[in-house]
């Protein structure tokens, strides 16, 4: 059966199973959008360089009911991030939250299904905040995820609490017997004066393919601090489209780092809406591509209110037949005076078949602002290379030293020590060279 037809069938099923709930109208609207807009093609400006339709030509098991499948705790061991013994671990199997495999260590953290959350004290927050990403992303994939939103998860961080253990999120697809289409949906609410660190990673078990269409919405309240790290190092046949939509509704600080190392087609939409004065956000990205991997980073910073500051730096190394796409947009709305927004994208091409398409974009409607963007595409510095070679350092070592140095700019923004070391190690493995 055609994947699109399957999706439609599953939608009807899920609607009749769940009956009507508070989220039904949101889902129905989204499904309506999906059927009219469809899967984005390369004619869509936002998808000009990324052909995602191929992913839908395969057959997928798309079966939210059979959960958590046959995944056991020991299956997860290779997936776990370092320091997990001291972390809250949230496990999603095939896009659905698996409480039995998850561990919650912090009392300031609440995890509920969205369906459940609409019934209790978080009712208003959920109804108000869920689906805000659709305001920015009007493509079929975001709508497709929203059509099944009720199966998602609500994560709440209590007011005034610092979550002492980082929150590790594992997105696991069990593709041991069939291709998997997973649609994780998360709404994270970080209350006033709260602080929390998230680290998310992706893994596919087995040799079949997986496609993950994820939407994460994060609402950051007054004086909250959020760090969000994403590490994408899945198998080379797995694709994902991940949307992270962050709303800074109070004066707050957000740091994100996205590291993309492997996959078939990896698309990251990162939207930051700065809706409160004096908000600050820093977002960094590192992509290091080999094989036929395509990584597409689309970021949007929407400065709605004055006195905000944002800093963006994405760096990439592209080898083999890899393709990197970067599209960064900075919007400065009419009232957002005194905005400082900076954006930079730097790329190194290592092979003849590597491609990079970059588009740093500014749209400015206010006059008292400081905005800049820049991008470069080039090679490793020949002089630096010669310097190292002339001191007897092998070609491979010199190359990996320089690439490593290029990546350090991003790595140093990963604050938790174990995560930073883990990413550093992944890069060393990729370079097939260890300095120790």
């Amino acid at each position, binding site marked *: 059966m055609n994947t699109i037809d399957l999706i439609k069938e599953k939608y009807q099923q899920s609607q009749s199973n769940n009956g009507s709930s508070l989220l039904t109208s949101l889902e129905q609207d989204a499904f309506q959008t999906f059927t009219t807009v469809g899967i984005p093609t390369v004619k869509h*400006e936002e998808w000009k360089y990324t052909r995602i339709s191929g992913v839908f030509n395969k057959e997928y098991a798309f079966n939210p009911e059979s959960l958590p499948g046959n995944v056991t705790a020991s299956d997860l061991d290779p997936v776990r991030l370092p320091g997990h013994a001291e972390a809250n671990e949230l496990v999603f199997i095939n896009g659905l939250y698996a409480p039995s495999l998850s561990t919650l260590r912090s009392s300031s953290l609440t995890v509920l299904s969205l369906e459940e959350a609409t019934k209790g004290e978080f009712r208003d927050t959920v109804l108000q905040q869920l689906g805000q990403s659709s305001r920015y992303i009007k493509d079929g994939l975001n709508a497709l995820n929203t059509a099944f939103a009720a199966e998602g998860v609500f994560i709440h961080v209590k007011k005034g609490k610092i979550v002492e253990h980082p929150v590790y999120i594992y997105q696991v697809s069990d593709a041991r017997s069939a291709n998997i289409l997973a649609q994780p949906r998360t709404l994270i609410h970080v209350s006033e004066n709260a602080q929390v660190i998230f680290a998310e990673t992706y893994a596919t078990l087995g040799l079949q393919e997986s496609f993950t269409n994820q939407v994460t919405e994060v609402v950051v309240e007054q004086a909250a601090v959020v760090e969000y790290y994403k590490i994408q190092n899945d198998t080379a046949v797995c694709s994902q489209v991940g949307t992270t939509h962050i709303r800074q509704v109070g004066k707050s600080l957000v740091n994100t780092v996205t590291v993309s190392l492997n996959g078939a087609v990896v698309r990251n939409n990162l939207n930051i809406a700065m809706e409160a004065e004096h908000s600050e956000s820093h977002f960094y990205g590192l992509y290091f591509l080999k094989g036929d991997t395509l990584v597409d980073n689309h970021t949007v910073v929407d400065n709605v209110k004055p006195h905000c500051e944002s800093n963006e730096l994405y760096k990439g190394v592209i080898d083999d037949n890899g393709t990197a796409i970067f599209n960064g947009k900075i919007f400065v709305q*009419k009232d957002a*005076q005194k905005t400082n927004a900076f954006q930079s994208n730097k*790329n190194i*091409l*290592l*092979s*003849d078949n*590597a*491609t*990079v*398409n*970059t*588009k*740093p*974009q*500014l*749209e*400015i*409607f*206010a*006059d*008292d*602002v*400081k*905005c*800049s*963007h*820049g*991008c*470069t*595409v*080039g*090679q490793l510095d020949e002089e630096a290379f010669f310097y190292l070679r002339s001191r007897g350092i092998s070609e491979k070592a010199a190359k990996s030293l320089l690439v490593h140095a290029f990546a350090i700019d991003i790595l140093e923004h990963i604050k938790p020590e174990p995560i930073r070391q883990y990413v550093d190690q992944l890069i060393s493995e990729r370079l097939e060279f260890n300095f120790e």
Partner: protein
Amino acid sequence: MKSDEIQSENIVVDEGLDILEQTVRNEYKYGFVTDIEADSAPKGLNEDTIRFISAKKEEPEWMLEWRLKAFRQWLKMQEPHWANLKYPAIDYQDIIYYSAPKQKEKPKSLDEIDPELRKTFEKLGISLDEQKRLTGVAVDAVIDSVSIATTFKEQLAEQGIIFCSMSEAIQNHPELVRQYLSSVVPVTDNYFAALNAAVFSDGSFVYIPKGVRCPMELSTYFRINAENTGQFERTLIVADEGSFVSYLEGCTAPMRDENQLHAAVVELVAMDNAEIKYSTVQNWYPGDKEGNGGIYNFVTKRGICKGNHSKISWTQVETGSAITWKYPSVILKGDHSVGEFYSVAVTNNYQQADTGTKMMHLGKNTRSRIVSKGISAGFSQNSYRGLVHVGKNATGARNFSQCDSLLLGDKCGAHTFPYIEVKNKSGVVEHEATTSKIGEDQIFYCNQRGIDTETAVALIVNGFAKEVMAHLPMEFAVEAQKLLAISLEGSVG
């Protein structure tokens, strides 16, 4: 507020507002209508209109076929809407596609030219005889699409240079026209290029033979005249091996309430070691301060560096038009070829500009440089949209792009859409952009030294645009600076 009072006070903000108002009140200086009996095609567009134009111009059969082919393609195409522009739908059937000033015979000398026309040029400050005598610029003046007078033609002919109107070229040099026409901008390239191919009325044709350095700046002044006349110019410049030409295009148009459509096509071909420098000062009617009227300018300009070591350089100063949709591009096909783009785009009131360039690196060791300066004031929107493409075989390609925006006022917008595509690992591409306003500290610094705010703003804006202005030929630099002053003087917010 009088100017002496301005000097005595140092309240920057108040003065700024006052000066802004003055600027906004600046009426379009070149708005007037010359009364010439026009010989027009009936309104609307169909195959008959095209046959009418072709017959009127006594074109050969192949030309008519070419036009009809373009028209049939155009019918299948859709008007593009990807640009960052908002305008009411254009009714293509409500346009007169051909209008020529009536003249009984072709003039043999300047004296025989219709005095009304002569006056028009005088008002624009480009009196033909004066130019002929003093500046040494050969002017191919175009009023409503038909070339009226071409000066210095004989002098150029001695060196084998062909500089004439496109219709003459079709009659006298069909082999050259057939060879190069639509070789850079195919008729089906885009909606407006196809429309132009179908209905173009006239334009300029330049051919520089091998090894010839054109002794003077070639120049065409365009002018849109009769009411409801879309202007569809087509220019073709071919620089053969080792030649050099500098071509100037300057435009002013009379004031008009209805929107006028302008869809021009410019094609440049540079062979081995040839260089073409193409400069534009565009000051068409931008509409009044409420945003009514003004010219819709949808232009396709493209050059090809066909030979090795060839060079094409575009310089533009865009201050006019209600809508500007224009992307002068260079296809760097020959090895070691060079493409350059220097642009100043000024928008005020409700003007909208979406302009930029495309640099297609195909040959080896090709270089390109883009410098774009956008200045927006009033309620205007100014966008830079550019593409730098480094193809798979373009080893050693190098690009540097810089696009800066200056915002004068808090109701305007500045946008940047740079597309960068690199498919070769030896390519080095850099892009940088900034957006800022004129700093109060800068104004204060000038005020302190006895420079009034108005002059200070002119100074800063001129300094901002200087990098581009420096690339304009002498004759144009003066006019361009005046235009900048008229459009923006003192618009500090």
